[in-house]
């Protein structure tokens, strides 16, 4: 946990469709939508299933297990909040339920990260109001 008054990185700006997702993160649950009609999962959350356009769906708790689909390592500082973080690893993670989401991969030197490497979610309570989902090697 980083103290709120020193946390100087951007915070997520939820939309009406993603508020429940970020609330889930605060409870350390990774919630994703699952379609009642066709069973597919998707991300980011939205009002209907992009596969079959059904508006009948539920939030389900993802296992949090997945693999690195693609990654990159930031060396350039685009935002002063990350000045002390470079080099840091960002990735597209594919969850075992199917959807892909961007995040950080931590707990491993950037040079050791590999495509298809298994990872699992953890939660970083960056401020009292915001919790981020991140991944570490599984």
């Amino acid at each position, binding site marked *: 946990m980083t103290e709120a008054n020193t946390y100087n*990185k951007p915070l997520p700006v939820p939309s009406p469709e993603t508020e429940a997702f*970020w609330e889930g993160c605060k409870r350390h649950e990774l919630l994703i939508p699952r379609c009642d009609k066709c069973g597919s999962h998707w991300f980011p959350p939205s009002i209907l299933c992009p596969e079959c356009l059904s508006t009948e769906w539920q939030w389900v708790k993802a296992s949090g297990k997945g693999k690195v689909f*693609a990654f*990159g*390592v*930031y060396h350039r500082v*685009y935002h002063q909040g990350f000045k002390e973080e470079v080099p840091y690893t960002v990735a597209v993670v594919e969850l075992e339920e199917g959807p892909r989401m961007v995040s*950080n991969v931590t707990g491993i030197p950037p040079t050791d990260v590999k*495509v298809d490497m298994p990872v699992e979610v953890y939660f970083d309570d960056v401020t009292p109001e915001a919790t981020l989902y991140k991944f570490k090697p599984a």
Partner: protein
Amino acid sequence: MTTNLSGKYAIVGVGQSAIGQVGGVSSTNLLAIAMKNAIEDAGLTNKDIDGLVSRGTDEIYCHHQKMGELMGMNVSYSNSLDSGGASQIMAIMLACQAIETGLCNTVVCGYGRDTWSRTRSPRSKMAVDMVSQSQLGLEFGPEFGILGAPVDYAFALSRHQALYGTTKEQLGHIAVTLRKHASKNPLAQMQTPITMDDYANARWIVEPLNLLDCSLLSDGAGAVVVTTAERAKDLKQPPAYILGFGSHNNLRGWYHNDHMTNTAAIQSSQAAYRMAGLGPKDIDTAQLYDCFTYMLMAELEDYGFCKKGEGGPFVASGALDLDGEIPTNTSGGQLSEAHVEGMLQILEGARQLRHQYPIERQVPNAEVALISGHGGRTVCHSTLILGRQPS
């Protein structure tokens, strides 16, 4: 019913503004200069133009209206586009469709930007290494430090490397070859040749992309005039006939399916080849959208100039040289000439077909040029095939 428009329309005028580190002129006014130059190149005046399709920096509302105001034009057809770097070829496609359906006869199309002025010039108000507020007010990106344009292509390259063993050294050949082309272009933003050592020592931006994998921050504009092949015969310049065009947009996103490594260029190129009745073997020069070295390499595969996965060895073989298998981005591209979102590639394709370049810049016997556009949220793609002859 299908109507084949191949060879029915032509680019009859091309023009550009000053490009590179220009400063002191806004993007719409740079584009006005480019449009004036294109119209005059065709031997026409603003009174001869009855269509306008444009794009500029994305915050300008109703961009085509602003351009008409600057150009003193009321027109029967105009519009502005919103597909990033794919828009500039889409503008030409729209021009052909508008003329075909009787909406207008002679259309000016173009794009202008002032990115260097905004981000790097001494007068810039934006601090270097900062990103815009609009990019920060989002989720699923900025909170993880995912900012700026290079990251999506870094993701894609990481996958291409894992799937096909593509090396950084291979990509270096793209940067070095395009700089060599730019060194013969007196208007290019970067004319000093670079070596493979320079490439290997360039600082990382978002690994696996380094500074020399990234296109330039430029000011500049380009424009073309499109009209019927019939009318083109009476105009000043040898026409570049529009033999084929196509587009494809993977709207579900860059992270979906295998879109990063099998890009929308696959379907876009097939549509354009089909319309033109041509294939990759018939193309004499390619002007490909090179926002990053990776994208150019992926397009070489997706356009069928080499097999999927073999882009690395292909570029390392010297294929992009003026006397190579497919002379590519012969004015230096966005990596070295200037990044005007694909507009300068359209001009270079048309100019190569005029055979007016000095010998050190001319693709020998260039009869057919292929041009690509790519952008939006990295998923919109467009293709244009031009010919020295209408068929």
